[in-house]
């Protein structure tokens, strides 16, 4: 009765141990690595004697290689999870809070036809089946007294290139394209260069025809 249970538990522990204790890294040769691999694959049918005495004290072995032509397998890599290298039972590192970037003059566009970023808070705005509060300020009827920029002609065009006299349904959900921005340094540098083709005009030409 006890034996099969031990076998199962032992096997599981053994299989797990390289991951559970993956704190330290040991470099081994490729030959050893292959030996380890075949050992691992044969583990499925691990005997009871091996399993009941799992060698938990052994240093865990992660992969290794010194050859340059096998760059990926064998490289010991530590990848941080989203919460960093913190143990699961510790509180995650506090993240720095970022404020929304606001500007009265709008945010510079990076290419022709870029939907401009939203330079103001949109916390109060609701876009639902019942209504869209962005229109309170950006619609043709209201923008003048609200001193807000009106959405451009492209917002009246349906996907069949028809021009409506009111907002096109595919432009109803404004924040599909327009988003507020946080004032942060980008994690990844961006080397994007703006094009100079006036796509906007082309689009409008197509519509007019």
């Amino acid at each position, binding site marked *: 009765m006890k034996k099969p249970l031990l076998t199962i538990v032992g096997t599981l522990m053994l299989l797990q141990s390289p991951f559970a204790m993956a704190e330290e890294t040991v470099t081994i040769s490729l030959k050893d690595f292959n030996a380890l691999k075949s050992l691992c694959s044969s583990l499925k049918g691990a005997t009871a004697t091996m399993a009941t005495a799992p060698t938990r004290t052994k240093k865990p072995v992660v992969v290794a290689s010194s050859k340059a032509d096998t760059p990926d397998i064998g490289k010991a890599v530590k990848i941080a999870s989203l919460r960093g290298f913190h143990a699961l039972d510790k509180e995650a590192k506090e993240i720095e809070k970022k404020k929304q970037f606001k500007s*009265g003059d709008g945010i510079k566009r990076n290419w022709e036809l870029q939907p401009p970023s939203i330079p*103001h808070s949109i*916390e*109060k705005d609701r876009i639902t*089946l*019942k209504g869209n509060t962005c*229109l*309170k300020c950006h619609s043709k009827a209201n923008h003048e*007294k609200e*001193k807000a920029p009106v959405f451009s002609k492209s917002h009246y065009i349906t996907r069949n290139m028809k021009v409506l006299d009111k907002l096109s349904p595919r432009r109803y959900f404004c924040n599909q394209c327009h988003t507020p921005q946080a004032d942060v340094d980008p994690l990844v540098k961006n080397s994007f260069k703006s094009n100079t083709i006036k796509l906007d005009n082309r689009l409008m030409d197509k519509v007019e025809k």
Partner: protein
Amino acid sequence: MMQIKNLKSCQRMAGFFIKSTLLIGIVIGIILWGGFNWTLELTNTEQFCISCHEMEENVYQELQETVHWSNRTGVRATCPDCHVPKDWSHKIIRKIQASNEIFHKLMGTIDTPKKFEEHRLELALHEWKRMKDSNSRECRNCHQFKSMDLEKQDERSAKRHDPHVWEAMDGKTPSKTCIDCHKGIAHHLAKGWEEAAKKAGLQD
């Protein structure tokens, strides 16, 4: 002799009676008055408002999404802060009007979310009208225009808060009031609210 004496004691009795009645009257009056104001206060709490599920399931839930429920400074607005006047005479008038809500409660006018949604525009129009007529008195209990630092506000707010445009400057009557521009700050807006408000002359 007896008669005169009687008369005197009668007078004394009467005097005592009047005085004591007055006294009792005053005491009862104080109790009633206190009780009246006490009930008035009791019905001036958010707990009272949301004791009706019509208020609790709709508008109360929506309020919780807004800045008047939770914000940087931790100052909160409760239902009566925005809906019940602070000064006594306006408060009594509003309370008497509000007894109408009990009738509609009994009638079940808005007792499902669907029915509430159907009536929302009508209720909102009442509220907008009331706030427009009072020059947004309840908002101004907390927001003093003269205490607003336009420099600190968003560009977008400051552009629209130029008091020369709409506040009561130099003895002129104000042309605009908070609710003209700030609809839907506490609850969801009904479908077609803008057209309806414009038609009623309540939208800027």
